[in-house]
């Protein structure tokens, strides 16, 4: 993707000759890499402000918040935005230094893009994740009753995501190991009863499910599937076992 971007950029910017001075990138272009669909820094500030309000909505879906709590959470969210824009400013400074030296050329354009890319990813993935100030302050601000209501909703969402991940695993397995509707339903029930996925929002959740399936008692599976199906499913389970070390390293299992 990155290579493709650089290639396209070079095609666009490169004119009749490939001389390095032909590449002209200004701070607006640099900003557009960072803010992408948000178009500009100013627009991004406004939209990120809206996202703070949506994160407050997210909490109020679980439990009502008092005005003083909302103020604290909003303030923390603004801290996340400030922290992000401080990093943007650092990246801009780096860019300006290279620009001032007239050193922007085909050799370092990828490095310059690398200054913008992590910021673009942060903004795409959202500034208010688990490690954000907003989330930390929200956790510290709510009382026990509110915390319990938030946990209950989070648990419901976790279950929904876990179920979706298990269904996806099963649907994919079914494309390789054809099974009847009854077998699919029994297997899903078995998974739902016996598997607890630690982080169903993780991008590697499919590997996590594969590992958890490898931990299910073989006897339970043989009650559902015929011999030929079991041979194929066992190959899948072996792959799950092989994932264990990696998943441990990633902190997804103990």
């Amino acid at each position, binding site marked *: 993707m990155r290579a493709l971007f650089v290639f396209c950029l070079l095609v666009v910017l490169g004119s009749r000759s490939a001389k390095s001075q032909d590449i002209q990138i200004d701070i607006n272009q640099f900003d557009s890499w960072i803010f992408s669909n948000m178009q500009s820094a100013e627009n991004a500030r406004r939209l990120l402000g809206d996202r703070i309000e949506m994160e407050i909505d997210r909490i109020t879906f679980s439990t009502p918040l008092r005005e003083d709590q909302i103020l604290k959470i909003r303030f923390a969210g603004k801290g996340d935005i400030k922290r992000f824009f401080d990093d943007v400013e650092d990246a801009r400074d780096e860019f300006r230094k290279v620009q001032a030296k007239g050193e922007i050329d085909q050799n370092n354009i990828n490095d310059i893009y690398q200054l913008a890319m992590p910021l673009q990813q942060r903004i795409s*993935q959202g500034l208010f994740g688990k490690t954000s100030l907003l989330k930390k302050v929200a956790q510290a601000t709510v009382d026990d009753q509110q915390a319990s209501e938030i946990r209950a909703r989070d648990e419901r969402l976790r279950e929904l995501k876990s179920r979706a991940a298990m269904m996806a695993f099963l649907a994919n397995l079914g494309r390789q190991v054809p099974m009847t*509707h009854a077998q699919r339903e029994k297997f899903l029930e078995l998974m739902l009863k016996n598997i607890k996925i630690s982080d169903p929002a993780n991008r590697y959740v499919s590997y996590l499910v594969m590992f958890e399936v490898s931990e299910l008692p073989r006897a339970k599976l043989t009650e559902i599937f015929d011999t030929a199906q079991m041979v*194929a499913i066992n190959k899948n389970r072996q792959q799950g076992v092989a994932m264990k070390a990696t998943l441990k390293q990633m902190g997804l299992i103990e």
Partner: protein
Amino acid sequence: MRCFKRFTSPGFVEEGESKSLSRIFFLGQRLSSLLSPGQRLKKQLACLLVLLTPISSFADDAEEEISAYEEMLAEAVEETQPLLELELEFEPTIKVIEHKEVRVMGFQGRLRDEAVEVEVAVRPPKANEPPLEFMKPLYNAEISFVKRVCNPSDQQMKDIIAAVKTAYQTTGEMDDDPNNINFQAGQVRIMGPGNEQLNENPYRRVRRDAKNHLKEQLSDEQYAKYLVEAKQRDDFERGAAIEIVVGLIDDKIPLAEPERSELVRELLDKWDDVDLQSVQNYVYNPEYMPQLPPGVIDKVLTKKQLATWRTLNVTNISFHIGFNNGQNLTLDEEWIQ
């Protein structure tokens, strides 16, 4: 009349090629997917666009198919016109050539006071394209599915294998010449393990072929059972894909319970062609979001949520259909050698 869309077919219709009804319908859907008057309209338009298939030739023993095709055309026109407020400017010109080939010469219609004008290109037939080897395990898996669902007799199994093998032999047509194929914005590219540019989803192809070829080989009861089980499988896959997408949206845009339920409902209603494997790409690449059927997001989200949605990287990610890892996990049942 203003022309708002002009479309030339991407050249997947091949002169002289024998086509089943479902293939024709598929081509109609492909054409309709390039227009975007709304998913619900698309479905209706798909029926009408069957008319646009420029050349549909049938096998010598396809009298029934021809008559069913003609009936379908009549029904499509009758049902679609009032729904779309669409008036045909010209009746589609359908010519029956040598009593086996139906040729639709041209079409113009008006959609909600705007014009849809369609030109159809025909490319020369592919001569004896070899089947795509990577499709074989998929066809074998489908036969295994039939075996478990329908419990066919030994003789039926022989006939099923022969019929499905015939379908497999035609899979060469799925591999489009990259120079000819005309991908449109919003279309998911599906590639085979050797970077083949596939002109249709391999799983859908296999399942459609099976559906078409099994009717003759199974009893009515067995066939009905197959259809029910196949639909349950499709629904399960689609349900999983849609739940994943809704979860991804909720990560970025907090959804209240009623919004979440409505989004699931809307997507189940309108997102027929969602593919599980395609959707899973977005789990690995959370900075992107898939394109949803038109109208769904606007209907469910609030203004504030919509403003956020519009800033997300909504794009269709091309993907390789994942056979490589899957092959060694398939059943040890190689019906087609």
